[in-house]
Structure formats: structure tokens, C-alpha cells
């Protein structure tokens, strides 16, 4: 696969991930943000 091909594949994956995230229920968004904040605190200590 060419470099430009790789870019478009990862780009499509990112777009699909964003589309999937936007389709989720607001409650799952809260779970995502909340766990992200907790994970950051676990990593920082």
C-alpha cells in the first residue's frame, strides 16, 4: 500500500471512529469523558 493509501485508510478509520462516537448515547459520552479524566489521574499518580 502506498503512503497516500495508508493515509486515506487511517483517515477513513478516524472518520468512522468519530461517526461512531457521535452516534453514541450522551450517557456513554459522559462515561468516556469521565473515564478519560480518571485514567489521566491514574497515570499521573
Amino acid at each position: 500500500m502506498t503512503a497516500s493509501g495508508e493515509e486515506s485508510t487511517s483517515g477513513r478509520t478516524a472518520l468512522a471512529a468519530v461517526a461512531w462516537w457521535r452516534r453514541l448515547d450522551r450517557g456513554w459520552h459522559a462515561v468516556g469523558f469521565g473515564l478519560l479524566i480518571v485514567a489521566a489521574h491514574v497515570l499521573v499518580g
Partner: protein
Amino acid sequence: MSGRPPLRRLAPGLAVLLVLGALARGVGRVVPALNALIVAIALGVVVQATTGLPEWAQPGANRHKLLLETGIVLLGAQLTLGELVSTGPLVVALAAGFVLFGVLYVETLSRLAFDLDRGMRALLAAGASICGVSAILAVAGTIDVDEADVTYAVATVLLFDAVTLVVFPILGTALGLSGKSFGIWAGVSLFSTGPTAAVGFAVSDTAGQWATVTKLVRNTFIGVLAMGYALQHTRAVAGDTSTRELWYRFPKFLVGFLVVVAVTNVGLLSPAARASIETTTDWLFTLAFVGLGFGIDVGEMRAAGARPIALVAVHLLTVSALALLAVTLLV
């Protein structure tokens, strides 16, 4: 407008929430008598009533429920089940008994004597029986309630926090209770954690420590209560009671809340990390309250009248009298 990238569309409104939230927290710090959450709501109401929220700020400001639910997920970091073990069975039994009694008492009284709707009943039952503002917000997130009801319930609980902050230390000294007895009594009877600890320490260090730990044990029931109301509400609104339908309507952020409780209780978070998460939670709630303020209809609150305040007063008097009796006999 809707074609713009989400972040560019949301940023102006989120910035408005952040600026007004920071202002509310600043005022709350400079004037300790003014609770930052109440100032946040007031700022939202004033902006809405004067200039109105500009159209460019609405998409971001309308995300205040997401901020509220994220704050509830993070509340899980404040629940340490170790408190349950360390206090012994008597305190756990007293806390559990009075939480259960308080919820049933408020629910029953609101139906029979105060004619309050289902949402307000649940909010007051949570706020008065467990943990003031946090419990109100946790339950509000799980059921469909008017934003005006949430504001009114929070204001009612904060009003009683202020009153008990003055009255309970005077009563404690007058009754001549031991530090431990007074602490457990205050921990079982009062609403918000901060004022409960302050009331205890106003009497003695021992009273303060017992008040705080008893209150923290009571707080561990937030998740159970929110889950219970969520299931009840889901069943009530879903015509189809299949597991699939119930799960579809179930407030998903409670899953995150439980995960954070688990992460906290396996010891992955240091005390400093928990303190930092608590600060983040406070900020999220403040920002969410500015957003709630934008949607408040003062007329709706006026229509509720003084009944919620009267109900919470009856609850406080009953629970504190029964708790005093229990503490005198058992501790």
C-alpha cells in the same frame, strides 16, 4: 451553522459556561456564605432574563447535561467502601436504616400531605436522605425532571445546610452528648458532607471525625439510590418492559460511575488524585449549573411554593429526633 466542525460550534457556548462558572466560584470563595452553585444558577438566570443567551453560544451551553453526567461519573471517586468496614456494623446499620427510612418517609409524605410530583419527590428524597447536592444531581440525571425542580431542590437543601450549621452545634452543646454520639447523630441527620463535618468539628475533634465518617458511609448509598430510581423510572416510562428496552432507556453514565467506584476502591487513585478529581467534579457541576440557570423559568419555581421546603423541614425534624433517640440508646 450546523455544517461547522463540532468543536468550533460548541466552543463559544462552553467558553460562556466557563467564564460564568469561574465567576461563580470566585464569588463563592470571596463570600463563603454564598454557595458557588447557587451563584452559578443565579448568573445563568440573570443572563437569560436580561440579554438572553446569544444564538452563537447556544450549541455549547446546551451541553450542560453532558457536563453534569460526567461530574456524576467522577463522583464515584469520592466513594470509598473502606469507610464502611472501618466504622463497624453499628454506624453502617444506622446509616443504612436512616437512608432507607428517609427515602420512604419523603416519598410517602410528598404523596399524602404535600402533593409534589414524582420528580420533585425523588430529588428531595435523595437530597435529604443521603448527600445533599450530589445525591440530587445523581438522581436528577437518571430520571426526567424539570430543570426548575433540580434548582429548587438544590436551593432547599443548601438552605437547610445553612440553618443546621448554626443550630446543630448549639444543640450538641446543650444536650451534653459525647463527641462520638454527637458526631454520629450529625452524620446520620444532616444533608451535605461539608457542613456536616463543619458542624462536628465546631463541637470537638472527636465529634468532627465521627460526623465525617458517618456521613461518608451514608454517601456510599448514592449509587444504590440512583440505580433504584433509574430502574423505577425506566420501567415507568417504557411501555415495553423487555430487557432490551429497559437497557435502551437506562442512564448509561451510571455504568461509568460504578467503574470509577471500582477503580477507586482497588486503590488505583492516590489521595491527591482523588482530591484533584473532586475539584474537577465541582467545576463540572458549577458549569452545568450555569447552563441549568439559562433554562430556569422562575415562574415555575414560584408555582411550587413553599411545599418542598416544608417537606424537608418535617423530614429533618423527624430524622434528627429519631436519630438522637437511636444514638442515645445504642452508642
